[in-house]
């Protein structure tokens, strides 16, 4: 799929350049993408999913003490690509945090989310990441009143301060009443984000 606009939605495989180096992210399993996204592991998409040989020029620069290239630059690319792959990167926005929140809510309340998908004829693991994240967005909006919707939108699209990103914690049992569920979601919005991850396997 071609880009709808620069920085807009994308699908895999996706070709891009980082500092002039041509790279391709090949197809990935949707379940892997959902898990990486929900747990904040941007590096699994970029650079880990890219062919190591094509990453070699950037790898050499990463370990050059006089070159500015560092993790923060990989993070910038990885989070932007994930946001766009999730279809929640509007113009001039990264889309990473809303995508992480929606994936996290869908995975931690999977039976409810899946049931909603079945009811609405959506296959949450048979299509694209963009479709699953869109389904999660529709699921979580479903049945909310105007005030709750406004609060949801505000919290969904905000960028958390680092101090507000807690360690991953076991989720409480999901509520089964729609309104209670929505209330729990809103209350938990700031608490359901993934914590810091131990990074392994990065070049």
């Amino acid at each position, binding site marked *: *799929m*071609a*880009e709808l606009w*620069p*920085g807009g939605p*994308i*699908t895999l*495989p*996706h*070709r*891009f*350049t*980082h*500092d002039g180096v*041509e790279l*391709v992210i090949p197809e990935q399993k949707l379940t892997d993408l959902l898990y990486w996204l929900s747990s*904040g592991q*941007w*590096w699994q998409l970029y650079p880990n999913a890219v062919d190591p040989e094509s990453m070699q020029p950037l790898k050499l620069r*990463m*370990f050059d*003490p006089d070159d*500015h*290239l*560092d*993790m*923060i*630059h*990989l*993070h*910038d*690319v990885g989070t*932007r*690509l994930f946001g*766009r792959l999730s279809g929640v990167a509007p113009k001039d926005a990264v889309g990473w945090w809303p995508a992480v929140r929606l994936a996290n809510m869908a995975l931690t309340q999977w039976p409810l989310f899946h049931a909603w998908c079945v009811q609405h004829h959506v296959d949450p693991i048979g299509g694209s990441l963009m479709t699953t994240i869109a389904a999660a967005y529709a699921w979580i909006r479903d049945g909310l009143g105007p005030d709750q919707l406004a609060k949801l939108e505000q919290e969904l699209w905000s960028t958390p301060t*680092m101090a507000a*990103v807690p360690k991953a914690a076991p989720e409480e049992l999901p509520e089964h009443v729609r309104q209670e569920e929505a209330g729990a979601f809103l209350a938990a919005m700031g608490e359901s984000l*993934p914590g*810091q*991850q*131990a*990074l392994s396997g*990065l070049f």
Partner: protein
Amino acid sequence: MLRSARLHSLGGVTKDVSAFDSAAVTVPDRPTASLVIADREYEVRCPKLRVWMAVIERQEDYEAGTALKPHVQELYLKLAQHPSEEERDKLIDQYRTLQPVYSAAPTVLQLATYLLDFLCSCMTDRADAQALSEAYNTDDGDVDIPHLRRALDEMDNAFADWLDAQADFVGVQRPELPEPVPNRAAKRAAGRTAAAKKTSSVAKRTTAATG
């Protein structure tokens, strides 16, 4: 940060591409700190987060190898003693489990060379890097392996805030320096000290007895 570009299409790959430019991402300047190695002061710049993580990974590989060494040697000995077939298979299984970690670990000299290169690359003054390298590589130099390891600990303390902030920003845990596993050299050194003390006290007693 992101600009539109068009490149030629390759089978099945998105035709329109995005281009990322690292120069558009502002990174705060890395701080510097003074480091004392064998009584000489050096100025070092904080390493990049990925480089620091690689140094810790290398140190972890070494510590893991050091911790496994006695077990691997014990396995060699047991295998050399012609065990029963069942026992031998068990020992070989154990060896196969340990061997990848053990063989991936750098030797103490490889680690020292790695750490020396790393520390030299952090020096803000090339002359300091040259001095450190000479102090380590010459026979009468003051710098030895433990000094290099202590320098890492000092850097870990000096740059903790900056490295933590970077790690927080990208959502990863900054790995901690592993505790050094007491190695054979340290044990031998301790043994030599104890032997020297014993000899010294025996000599003193002998001197006292003979008047």
